[in-house]
């Protein structure tokens, strides 16, 4: 059974758990105890979004292991000391498999992994690796590149926008690939970005979308929003929009451009299998279309057929590994060379990307 805890309901348990911790020390796990899997995420789990995608990724694990696993989802945990405390608690409660669902949990989660060699930690969007600590990230850029092509084909103004959470490499990469894809169809396309500097503030996200529309952006990329704030505002204004993780088509039946959907279940299942077998080895898991983790779904029927044919051709090349969106020549926004002609940016540099490509009009915050 999935236990949906909020931070507030968890608080009640903290005092009691603290007491048992003091009295009994760590309770040794019996061999037939189910494996405790805890997922910690910064936003509430809804029908859609990042948290939903992570929680849904654990369903096949539950289906495969039945009552051999006990899955707990702790939602709405802000990054920072609160998160460290909660992750520590869940591990000391005997949960030996931790999924830290946000970039900002990195330091706390890594410390837990170092202190508890028996615990396996998966950490979203990070770059640190340890023997029992794997960062994982989706190659969203493979999908945003394809949607960039569609966006440029549908845009009348040649101006595209993105409402983005924080200027971290993962989000920057998505915006860059979106821009590069758009340039395939319309070389003069211009992309504006509004950083809301929050993972979760629906009102501000909607204001940001309206600010972009005021600048005549007529396709908007909702980059890492967990609620349909941007998507529903775009439907109301008649502006095309797309998002990541899970489909929000029901919030924008007319103007939904598509979804860069993620399915974490193959990765989660494989990691749990390895943990149970004792063969888990921390590694950087950067997963995309060819791993069946990333897939663009719910394409809008308004996309012209000829463009759709081109998109499908490139999608196939991405899937078989013969094409990467970050293949040179790519020029940075400041005019310097980003990727040389004929070379392809290796994954290690993609996950650390801290520059915008030419065509992104908004300067990157430093």
């Amino acid at each position, binding site marked *: 059974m999935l236990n949906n805890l909020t931070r507030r309901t968890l608080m009640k348990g903290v005092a009691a758990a603290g007491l048992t911790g003091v009295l009994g020390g760590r309770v040794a796990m019996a061999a037939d105890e189910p494996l405790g899997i805890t997922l910690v995420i910064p936003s*509430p789990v809804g*029908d859609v979004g990042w948290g939903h995608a992570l929680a849904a990724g654990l369903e096949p694990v539950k289906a495969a292991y039945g009552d051999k696993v006990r899955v707990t989802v702790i939602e709405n945990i802000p990054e920072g000391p609160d998160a460290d405390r909660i992750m520590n608690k869940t591990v000391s409660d005997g949960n030996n498999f931790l999924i830290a669902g946000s970039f900002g949990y990195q330091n706390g989660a890594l410390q837990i992994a170092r202190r508890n060699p028996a615990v396996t930690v998966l950490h979203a969007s990070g770059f640190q690796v340890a023997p029992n600590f794997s960062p994982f990230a989706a190659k969203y850029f493979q999908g945003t590149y394809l949607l960039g092509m569609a966006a440029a084909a549908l845009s009348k103004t040649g101006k595209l926008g993105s409402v983005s959470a924080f200027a971290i490499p993962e989000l920057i990469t998505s915006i860059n690939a979106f821009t590069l894809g758009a340039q395939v169809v319309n070389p003069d396309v211009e992309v504006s970005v509004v950083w809301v500097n929050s993972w*979760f503030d629906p*009102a501000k996200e909607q*204001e940001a979308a309206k600010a972009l529309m005021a600048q005549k952006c007529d396709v908007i990329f909702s980059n890492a929003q967990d609620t349909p704030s941007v998507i529903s505002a775009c439907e109301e204004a008649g502006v095309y929009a797309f998002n990541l993780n899970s489909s929000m088509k029901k919030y924008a039946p007319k103007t939904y451009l598509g979804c860069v959907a993620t399915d974490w279940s193959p990765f989660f299942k494989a990691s749990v299998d390895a943990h149970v077998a004792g063969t888990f080895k921390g590694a950087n898991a950067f997963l995309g279309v060819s791993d069946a983790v990333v897939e663009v779904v719910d394409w809008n029927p308004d996309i012209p057929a000829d463009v759709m044919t081109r998109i499908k051709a490139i999608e196939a090349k991405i899937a078989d590994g013969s094409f990467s969106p970050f293949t040179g020549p790519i020029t940075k926004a400041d005019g310097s060379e980003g990727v040389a002609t004929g070379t392809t940016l290796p994954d290690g540099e993609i996950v650390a990307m801290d520059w915008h490509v030419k065509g992104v009009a908004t300067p990157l915050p430093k």
Partner: protein
Amino acid sequence: MNAIEFILAGMLAAATPFLLAALGELVVERAGVLNLGVEGLMAFGAMLAFIIVYHDGGHLLAFVAAGLGSAVLSLVFAVVALGFRANQVATGLAIGILGQGLSALFGKSYESLTVKGLPRLALPWLSEIPVVGGLFIQDVVVWLSLAATLAIWATFANTKLGLVVRAIGENPKAAHAIGYSVVTVRFAAVAFGGMMAGLAGAYAAVVYTPLWADGMIAGRGWIAIALVVFGTWLTGRIFLGACLFGAVSLMGLGAQATGLDVPSQVLASLPHLVTILVLGIISADRRLLKLNGVASLGEPFER
């Protein structure tokens, strides 16, 4: 539409959640009570309103229910803090956490759902003026909040009721001595403040951003409390502060959309900085601050 038109058109709507909640807190504090539970009262009202609109109960009923619901919740604060004379700061915080918890609990099955907002009404003639015209196309709640601002200002300035509330905040003993029931008036003020916070939350959840998500109030209740203090308990300044805060936060987003080379972190903190700065400057006169400040704020009343 350029960036300036965008800011003018959106400013009043962006300010409304702050304004409604701050006006309520103004009345509460003027009566000498400090209720720090505004954030939770807003969340509670937002959740109630959203559920009603989602089940086709209509926006009017949603606002009524949000106002009443948050008023009732704030009366719990009143019973503990005024009836039992508990510490107001601690009680307010507790009620705030309770409100947030209740909203998360009952809102759980509505997470990430959306509803329809309210249509915008254009004032004839005025809305056709270039550039500033957008200022006069607003939904009905914005117009009503402006009316409420005027009404509260007029009440404090010109009516016996306003003077009684102020007297009780200034010197409850004296007010009591001439026959006013301090606790009754304070109860009423707290309930009014709760109602306004509920309406503010309702506006956020069913008009401004018509969707429900746990935590969607995102600190707006705290900003409302800050506006009351930085607005030195004056209705006009609180209105100014709310508009300024709304305008500068939109400005930050608009500036990014136009590609201005200012770090977004700076833009995100601008609303706070500018509001503090402006309200700080206009209330720099310490004599005036003392005059407007509420003498018995936060102190329990004992006969």
